[in-house]
């Protein structure tokens, strides 16, 4: 029991050190030696948990994916109308990307590995399936147009999220991901929201973006 806890603490320390290094100098430039040094571990300790740099990356992708999906689900299982939850949920995920180191590193690794890594491929497929299902519900609820193809909308939403994250990390070190997410929703909503609901969602999005922009003056 004690041994297990100690082993888990070691593993955690390795993951944290790797995440730090990947975020500082990038995955390709980071060697296993750097990680061992940062974690103050022996080579043996690292190899006991991970047999390669890629298996370490896979663990980070999986953990990031779990955190992000859980954050999204905790929003979308509420009693709010589905499309409201989806929009709000994407903001919460984006917020996590800019505040949570593991989530951020995992997403970047996801991009680096893409289809060449099972965990990465699973993560992409999971998000598309999730968004497709939510799209179907939002069509049922009348907020999205009835003539839409749920799969196509699901893929578009996931693509926009990933694209906004990519642009944010490529041009501003991830700092403005929330503003980019708000802008992509603004472009996308008129294309998919039903006529009756559009003005409501305009306002919904404006309020959401305002809440996620830095507060002007705290009182």
């Amino acid at each position, binding site marked *: 029991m004690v041994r297990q806890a100690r082993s888990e603490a070691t593993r955690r320390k390795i993951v944290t050190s790797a995440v730090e290094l990947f975020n500082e100098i990038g995955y390709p430039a980071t060697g296993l030696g750097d990680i061992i040094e940062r974690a103050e571990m022996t080579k043996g300790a690292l190899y006991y948990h991970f047999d390669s740099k890629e298996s370490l990356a896979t663990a980070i992708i999986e953990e990031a994916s779990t955190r992000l999906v859980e954050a999204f689900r*905790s*929003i979308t299982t*509420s*009693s*709010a*109308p589905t499309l*409201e939850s989806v929009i*709000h949920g994407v903001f*919460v995920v984006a917020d996590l990307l800019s505040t949570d180191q593991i989530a951020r590193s995992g997403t970047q690794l996801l991009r680096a590995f893409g289809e060449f890594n099972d965990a990465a491929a699973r993560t992409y497929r999971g998000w598309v399936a999730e968004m497709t299902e939510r799209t179907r519900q939002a069509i049922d*609820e009348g907020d999205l147009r009835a003539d839409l193809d749920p799969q196509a909308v699901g893929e578009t939403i996931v693509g926009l999220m990933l694209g906004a994250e990519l642009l944010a990390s490529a041009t501003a070190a991830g700092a403005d991901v929330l503003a980019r997410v708000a802008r992509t929703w603004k472009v996308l909503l008129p294309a998919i929201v039903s006529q009756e609901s559009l003005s*409501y969602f305009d*306002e*919904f999005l404006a*309020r959401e973006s305002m*809440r996620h922009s830095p507060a002007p003056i*705290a*009182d």
Partner: protein
Amino acid sequence: MTEQLDRRADTTRLQILRAASRQFARKSYSLVSLDDILADAEVTKGAMYFHFRSKHALASAIIEHRAAVARASVDQLLARKLSGLETLIDITYLVAIEDIGDEIARAGLNLLESVGRTDGLQADVLGQWVTAFAAVARKAVRDGDLTKDCDPESVARLLVSMYLGLRQTSNLADPDRLLHDLEEMWVLVLPGFVKPDRVDYLNQFIKRRTAVAIKKATPL
């Protein structure tokens, strides 16, 4: 071994609470007899007295159990990080849905009005509600939805009174009517403390919540 025994005792306690809630949700406090509860819970008199000394002790336990559950679901709502006023609206709809379809929730509120009035529990529990609502209302002022000069504490007390009055004057067995009544009350009170340019959006927000709630609520 003791852990196992404890767990069994907890299960029995919950079993009695549920059976009692089924009764208190449908009948007034004075009309419910301990024998009805015993028969429904399928436990012995001994087991019942081991956990609850009297009908009154049982009623207080239901009120407290329900208050704890409600606190947890409000915390969950707060974790969604919506705006303060949207959270307040969501809380009232959540309370209504549970009052309509959940025996423990219904019994808890019924008992709060009857036994709770005389033994101080009502003041306690409603005081907690008002404190919790007021904290969210203060956030709504910071969000800029509530007017600067409104008192969050008064808004909180108004909303608590609004719901407790609604469950008396409307019909808990008719979700459609109760939820529409809740919507109308919200629409009526909003202009009293919300900034004028936010009212249209919030009215729509409320209508949309009613539609979802009607689909979700199933009466006892």
